[in-house]
């Protein structure tokens, strides 16, 4: 079975140059270059947006309660800081306990600087998201992200299996991970498809907050100006809640998955991660 047309076996001297006899690896192209680049650019952009967002939040917390009888505090996030400084060893002498969370997760702490950074990063974030979408279309990668009807059944089964992992460990029963013929398994598809949507909703709710009068129809779509702030707040948590297991699972899954997001190719020719 001769597969190579440029074989030089006829003169019998340079067989080592013949690709058909050199060791080869079967690879598939997994991520378009624009998808890979924008994926990595999302990391600093989203981090900066969250840090400056926390700082902006500190100047007008969404979630507030009646003033505390002793401290006069109304901010639940400040309560967290007060509690931490009261209970965590080493924090007892923190100079400003209500500001602990903001001091550690909000950057920059200046309101005007945080606003400027947030605007700067969000314009870049929107540009980045647009290029990501372009990469999905050019590389055809969007096909693998689209949910399908079978995901309801298969995704539930997977979720149940994950829920049973600890039980399986206890009874020492091995539970093989289902193998997928598609690029992603149903739960990956759900979460990877949800991220661009969450990004879009975060941008839209942000604009609803930023221009609630000129874009009042947009604010109305989120339930009004005040509710758009609540959407924006919880969408931030969607990113955080996605990122933690995303990073852990990618590291557990092995080098091939990580490498494919750097270089584009993967040796998993038979579908998605095991």
């Amino acid at each position: 079975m001769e597969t190579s047309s440029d074989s030089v076996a006829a003169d019998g001297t340079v067989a080592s140059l013949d690709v058909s006899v050199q060791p080869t690896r079967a690879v598939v192209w997994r991520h378009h270059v624009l998808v890979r680049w924008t994926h990595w650019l999302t990391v600093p952009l989203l981090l900066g947006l969250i840090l400056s967002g926390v700082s902006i939040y500190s100047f007008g917390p969404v979630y507030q309660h009646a003033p505390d009888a002793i401290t006069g505090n109304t901010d639940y996030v400040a309560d967290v800081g007060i509690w931490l400084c009261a209970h965590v060893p080493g924090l007892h002498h923190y100079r400003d306990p209500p500001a602990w969370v903001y001091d550690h997760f909000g950057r920059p702490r200046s309101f005007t600087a945080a606003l400027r950074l947030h605007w700067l990063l969000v314009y870049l974030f929107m540009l980045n998201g647009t290029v990501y979408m372009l990469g999905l279309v050019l590389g055809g990668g969007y096909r693998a992200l689209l949910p399908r009807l079978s995901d309801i059944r298969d995704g539930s089964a997977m979720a149940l299996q994950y829920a049973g992992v600890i039980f399986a460990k206890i009874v020492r029963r091995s539970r093989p991970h289902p193998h997928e013929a598609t690029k992603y398994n149903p739960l990956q598809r759900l979460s990877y498809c949800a991220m661009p949507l969450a990004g879009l909703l975060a941008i839209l709710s942000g604009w609803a907050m930023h221009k609630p009068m000129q874009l009042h129809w947009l604010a109305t779509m989120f339930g009004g100006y005040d509710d758009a702030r609540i959407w924006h707040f919880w969408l931030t948590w969607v990113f955080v809640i996605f990122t933690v297991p995303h990073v852990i699972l990618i590291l557990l899954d092995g080098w091939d998955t990580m490498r494919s997001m750097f270089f584009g190719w993967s040796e998993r020719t038979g579908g998605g991660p095991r």
Partner: protein
Amino acid sequence: MSDDGEQKPAGALTDRHQRSSRGIFSEEPPAIVRVTEAELRACNRRELLKYGLGGAAVAALGGYATFGLSKPRRSKLLAGILTFDDDVAKAMYSPERLVPTYTKSEVTNLRVTYFGGAPDPSYIPGWRLTLRGLRSGRAETLTIDDLRRQFIIRDQITRLVCVDGWSAIAWWSGLRFNELLHAYPPTDNAKWAKLESSVSTDGMGHSDPYFVSIDLPTARHAQTILATQRNGLPLTVEHGAPLRLVAPMKLGLKNIKAITEITYSVEEPQDFWGNLGFSHYDGI
């Protein structure tokens, strides 16, 4: 070999479009390419080089912006994003677009936002509004009774949005800024109004005048009013007695209380929060 992908010669490792014969939404197995180690390494080198170039460019630009620029130049650069965002806001603004209005049952509590506390109300009896930069060349001085007599007082229930994030729905009554502009026209090429309150005080009770810039297209908007009343009663000192600006298409910080002077100008005037690093335009 039945699979097309298996037939690909080495050296064909490039981004490829996943085409599908089953429609534009169907996922099909990707094309499998057989490549040599050398080709894979060459591919990785190409990609690494691109990352390196991109990363170096970002690092150089970021490093220059962070360490290479003097502090004033750096803050000017960051201020550029405010200018850009203001340009976006100006492009979005339409003088015909009305902001949402509400019913009296939707009115909410309104915070008092005088930073140094409300000023001593002793200014109220002698209060006058002075208009400068008029076409007539004269300065006009008006009492609150002059304003109430000369202009139609209209109700307006709109949302006030603070730069901090909170908002409140308030019932105001006042005259349209646009009608004041018609009665006392500014100089012909005026583009701006500077609204000042000489009665504001700082936390120590010392005089600390407040001033905002308002572009005339915003001043002429049908819902930009000079309010004399809230909840159907004359304004209290905490909410800007006897006359304050209500411009719901601007952030709350532009809605200046206890206006004592309005000056029209061709050049953009100073703005209290604009001077402190916030946007100068504040259109929302």
